[in-house]
């Protein structure tokens, strides 16, 4: 959201609708043979190149253990990019783009590999004009982060020469609890300053997530109503039909709360609940977001059982196909107590949101995949149309994050006829219908922002740590030896356990039907 300095200073940029091209740089991807690189990163970089958003002087160096030549790496990347790219791969563009790709084989713990990486980067600076700018992308497992960071530092690659920059992009998980997050942040900060660190949360790169601030602060009609006086409650849902797939190893140590709530869902909540920032600079926005996390009422001890519910899917059916239960999945402990579903009742203790509960739910193997935020407004006064004999629904504003991105507003209307019958109707805005052009993938936007030095859509250290201070007491209660809250079960293909419905029913509310 920041306008880069170069855009303001280059007079030929004035009036051009396209954003400034980032400075030339070398991008080093650690974990270049992994899924993320194949499916997301290289296709995203290719799409940026095809749209003319990458600087001509860019070099992409894949860093991984397996022996491979530059040509082999390019061929592999071409194949996967053809499969996963948002737009079809054009031979002419790929030919030019692939010249920027190369492969650097090394163990993550091998010092010599970083020394030779440094030499390679210097060569690239001379040959391709990348000017000493480096972007290190950690697409490897989090257990490798410390090793990579130490070696980058030892090789002096964390420091940029004068007039250049060095940045690091870190993929989640940002720790598994507050202590490990602090430790990770300490390790990162030993090598890179906070201003050089970009913690990626791909939810924030989605068009609709970015549109939340526009919806709230560019339209005069919503903000006056956006508070405890007019809003009854908020709901945030992240449902997916997929099971644990090939991620059992990671998921068994994480669970839904750590995997989704600590990062994605709390980030969405921040965007919905934050105050207006003073300007659109990255830190102004992040300052406001972190205030929301700080204001979350901590759920501790016996309160956990009352306000948070965990569950695990059992055998069931998705789309007519029988699917196994979580404990039967490959790589999962048959006695696993890991949650694949969480529902929470959250309070934000600040002036704006006092007495407005936020209900959050996230789950695997639910009947459909959908992520959305719904704002449920208070009912109209109980006079005129709101009599006992007439059931009046609330007005609901729904922000659909994925799929079918858009916004809808439910309101009430009289059914034509001589009698007074009122039914809810929906005003619906779909990105896909109103704007013919497909949005760029989240990774495209985020990579471009990191290259341009715009950290707005990346999580800051204090945001991450504050989020863990909210999550940790819940995890502690779940893992307590005595009085640990129950783990519920739900059949795959259902909307979660009945207890999750009870969580809202106690407050005379219900989950929105998706």
């Amino acid at each position, binding site marked *: 959201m920041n306008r880069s300095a170069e855009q303001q200073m280059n007079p030929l940029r004035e009036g*051009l609708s*396209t954003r400034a091209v980032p400075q030339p740089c070398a991008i080093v991807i650690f974990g270049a043979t992994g899924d993320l690189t194949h499916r997301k990163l290289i296709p995203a970089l290719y799409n940026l190149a095809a749209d003319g958003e990458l600087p001509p002087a860019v070099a992409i160096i894949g860093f991984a253990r397996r022996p491979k030549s530059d040509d082999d790496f390019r061929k592999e990347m071409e194949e996967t990019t053809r499969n996963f790219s948002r737009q079809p791969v054009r031979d002419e563009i790929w030919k030019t783009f692939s010249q920027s790709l190369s492969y650097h084989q090394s163990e993550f713990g091998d010092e010599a590999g970083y020394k030779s990486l440094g030499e390679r980067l210097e060569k690239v600076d001379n040959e391709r004009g990348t000017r000493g700018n480096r972007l290190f992308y950690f697409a490897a497992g989090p257990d490798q982060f410390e090793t990579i960071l130490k070696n980058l530092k030892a090789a002096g690659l964390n420091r940029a020469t004068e007039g250049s920059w060095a940045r690091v992009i870190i993929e989640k998980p940002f720790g598994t609890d507050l202590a490990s997050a602090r430790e990770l942040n300490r390790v990162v900060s030993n090598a890179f300053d906070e201003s050089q660190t970009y913690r990626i949360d791909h939810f924030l790169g989605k068009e609709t997530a970015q549109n939340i601030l526009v919806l709230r602060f560019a339209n005069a009609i919503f903000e006056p109503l956006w508070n405890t006086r007019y809003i009854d409650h908020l709901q945030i849902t992240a449902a997916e039909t997929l099971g644990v797939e090939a991620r059992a190893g990671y998921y068994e140590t994480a669970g839904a709360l750590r995997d989704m709530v600590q990062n994605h869902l709390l980030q969405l909540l921040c965007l919905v609940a934050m105050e207006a920032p003073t300007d659109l600079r990255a830190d102004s926005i992040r300052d406001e977001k972190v205030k929301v996390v700080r204001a979350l009422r901590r759920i501790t001890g016996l309160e956990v059982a009352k306000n948070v519910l965990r569950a695990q899917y059992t055998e069931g059916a998705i789309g007519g196909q029988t699917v196994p239960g979580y404990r039967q999945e490959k790589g999962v402990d048959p006695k696993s107590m890991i949650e694949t579903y969480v529902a929470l009742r959250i309070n934000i203790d600040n002036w704006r949101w006092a007495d407005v509960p936020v209900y959050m739910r996230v789950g695997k193997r639910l009947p459909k995949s959908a992520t959305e935020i719904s704002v449920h407004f208070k009912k109209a006064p109980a006079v005129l149309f709101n009599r006992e004999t007439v059931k009046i629904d609330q007005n609901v504003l729904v922000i659909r994050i994925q799929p079918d991105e858009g916004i809808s507003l439910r309101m009430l209307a009289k059914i034509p006829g001589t009698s007074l019958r009122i039914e809810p109707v929906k005003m619906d805005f779909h990105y*896909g219908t109103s704007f013919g052009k497909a949005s760029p993938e989240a990774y495209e936007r985020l990579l471009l922002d990191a290259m341009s030095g715009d950290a707005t859509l990346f999580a800051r250290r204090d945001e991450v740590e504050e989020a863990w201070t909210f999550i940790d007491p819940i995890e502690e209660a779940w893992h307590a030896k005595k009085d640990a809250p129950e783990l519920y079960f739900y059949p795959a293909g259902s909307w979660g356990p009945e207890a999750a419905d009870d969580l809202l029913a106690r407050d005379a509310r219900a989950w929105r039907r998706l």
Partner: protein
Amino acid sequence: MPATAETYSLGAPVEIGKIEQELKKLWREGEGAMTRASLMNLAAYSEQPGSLNDNTQLMAKITEDHACRAIVIEADCRSDENRVDAWISAHCHVSHTGNKQVCSEQISFLLKGGCTTQLPSIILSNLDSDLPFYLWWQGELHDPMDAQLWEWVDRFIYDSHDWKDFRAQMALVETAQREAKQRLVLCDLNWTRLDNLRFALAQFFDHPASHHRLAEISKVQIDFAPGFTSTALLFVGWLGAQLNWHIGEVKSSRELRFTETAGQHIDVELREHDGQPVHGVALTSGDVEFGVTYANCGDLLEVSRVQTGEKRIPQLLPAGNNDPVDLISEELIRGGPHHVYLNALNCVRHLL
């Protein structure tokens, strides 16, 4: 209601007074199968015989990316008759998410006689309310135009490349702008044609280390196609206005000399060749040459920066197309005024 994915037909004839009623009927019949979408009113006006069909085809393509109420008007101003015929139709496309049939409606008019007097009433009574109004005028403008019309137009789209007398036509456009009580944005497709070239050239100077190169430009060469002198001059005007160059000497219609604020001269050479409207630009700044030229495939630009002793790294950037659908689409995704265009225009106005 058409059931196929696309249609270029003018659709069903309707009485002028019953257009809205018939449109409602059209949507009612297709309810459930398709979604009507509209972000703007887009009217295309032409006096070219047969333009009704041609513009319907263009609208079918434009509405794939820009949902709108399309109003297509063909005017036969010399006709002795004084009548208006109207049709309604819909352009339907499967959305990019692949799960919806998204439709835009089109109202078509064939005007005979009394064009300038009929036009405002025809357009104003058929605008979709609360949506911006873009008027795409094809060909030459008339004198006098009805002031009532301009008050409603948000963006006025024209192609100055089509004008025989640039200055006279521009005077009419500027009169329209004065008469519009709200701010009317002028959108010249001849300028839009330069968007990708301007972007390709501008990106060389994004890096702060390149900024000084702008002050050291000494030579500009522009290759353009026959008939596109005005396009090339607008490009020169853009460089001049943005870099504070003042025109000094006009050696010939193809050789100009500008002076920048510090007194350095910039020689501009315009070279006419077959090819794209403006198919190549080269800037010389000290020992560096910045080049933008069309790649062989025609829809990509090859950009390169050549400095003595440095390896040349060519890059391919999107070039866009010079067809009306692409130009209009480019214009429709933009917002805001075109100050840069007006500055460029003023810089070379007397040469156009």
